[in-house]
């Protein structure tokens, strides 16, 4: 079990949340090259260490927030409300906020 500190609701079991991922900024379709699109769509830094990432509290306040987590120990050292970063997540309009399906939901 991993506890995540939701900035709105306090510490809760990670099973209440949906992992959203690293913040990625959507490239400008007018100027982006194939390499830039590839990186935006697929390349992730996948560090073994501290990472800053977005989570969605699906069984709670149903809001996004940002967490600093160590990917080897799963220790969490800070969490923030998204404020300005929310615009640069992979879900800029918050479109998936209404869905329960996690990133890996699928036919299985």
């Amino acid at each position, binding site marked *: *079990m991993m506890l995540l500190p939701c900035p709105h609701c306090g510490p809760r079991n990670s099973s209440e949340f949906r992992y959203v991922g690293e913040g990625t900024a959507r490239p400008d379709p007018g100027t982006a090259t194939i390499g830039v699109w*590839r990186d935006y769509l*697929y*390349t*992730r830094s*996948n560090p*073994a260490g501290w990472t800053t990432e977005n989570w969605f509290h699906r069984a709670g306040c149903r809001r996004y927030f940002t967490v600093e987590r160590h*990917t080897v120990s*799963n220790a969490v050292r800070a969490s923030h409300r998204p404020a300005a970063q929310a615009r640069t997540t992979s879900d800029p309009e918050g479109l998936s906020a209404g869905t329960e399906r996690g990133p890996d939901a699928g036919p299985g």
Partner: protein
Amino acid sequence: MLSRLSSRNGHGMRARYSAFNLVRYGIGSGEWPRAWRDHEMKASYDVIIVGGGVHGLAVAYYLAADHGITNVAVLDKGYIGSGGSGRNTAIIRSNYLTPEGVRFYDRSVKLYERLAGELNFNVMFSQRGHLTLAHSDSSLRTMHWRAEVNKLEGIDSEVIGPQEIKALVPFMDTSESTRYPILGALYHPPGGIIRHDAVVWGYARAADALGVHIHQNTEVTGIDVSGGRVAGVRTDRGSIAAPVVVNCTAGWSTLISDMAGVDMPVTTSPLQAAVTEPVRPFLRPVIVSGTLHIYVSQTDRGELVFGASVDPFPSYSMRGSLEFTEELAGHILELMPSLSSVRVLRQWAGLCDMTPDYSPIMGVTPVEGFYVDVGWGTYGFKAGPVAGETMAQLIATQKTPELITAFGLERFSRGALVGEKGAASVGH
């Protein structure tokens, strides 16, 4: 092909495993010679393989056996098989969804079928059949789709109904009164399970006998690249020069590729598994249910081996979780209520290198001489032999073998993904 095979068989291994030697060492004096040796680390090798799992060891073995390239080192930061290769649930099958995937995994099944003889090591490949259950119309459609692709590629694979399932697995609840009634299943008779440690040890022993150096407890900490070419690796035991470096580190593979400056679309997530106390043999085929997110098989020793989907967020932690055991137990009991009194002995986790399309990433990279054999996610153990054979061929001939052209790193720039999620996300 035949000549390659006989040359593979002809290598002189010390102390063959045989009934005669079993008696000789059993009642006579003396010890079995070590299956593989320790060596001094050389200042340079022709090929350095990073990662001593089934992939790294298989690449080394086929380089030596098929191409006579023996000045090869396999480096592992722990002991061989300490990664996914020693932690997986050992399911082997080829009933995938894409023609590229089916052909590729089929070759691996064929290599596995004769591996025990080739390596003179009992890998206990047990082709007991593999059932992927469908609990909904949409998954039944996917099963039919897979069955048709499989048949076109010459794979034994068909959709069967609840009565036939019941005949294969009498203990399964195939009634209509369950929460997710079973509508049918994809049945794949050549699928089965294997002794995963034996595969690792068998490749290590055979590669060692052909002259490959295996260096355990040797961590790669950097990769030297100059002028767009790989020059060697740095380790916690010193630097080694090599014109060819192969990344076979699965869950750790982005860390190694980062050292060479190669970006990869891979994230690392734990996958958990559990095993029960042994019970009398009652379950022949491997059972997978995507809807219930579980699979189960019974080993030759009678233990039930369970697995599930990959953990829901990336991490390099190999700790098990209570959520996993609880969900697993609940879902297993839906399928086989009579297991309620069986005790779980152990649970564990391993790291999986997940790709966006659930297909591997194999072949050349933008850095000359730096090859990758990664992206094995939750399903790569079964691919060890074919990956070893094709990567060795690529390194020896500088030509990408047909079987792996679809799996190149550059496919993500072309949008030419090989979508295997429908056949690999729970089934492994």
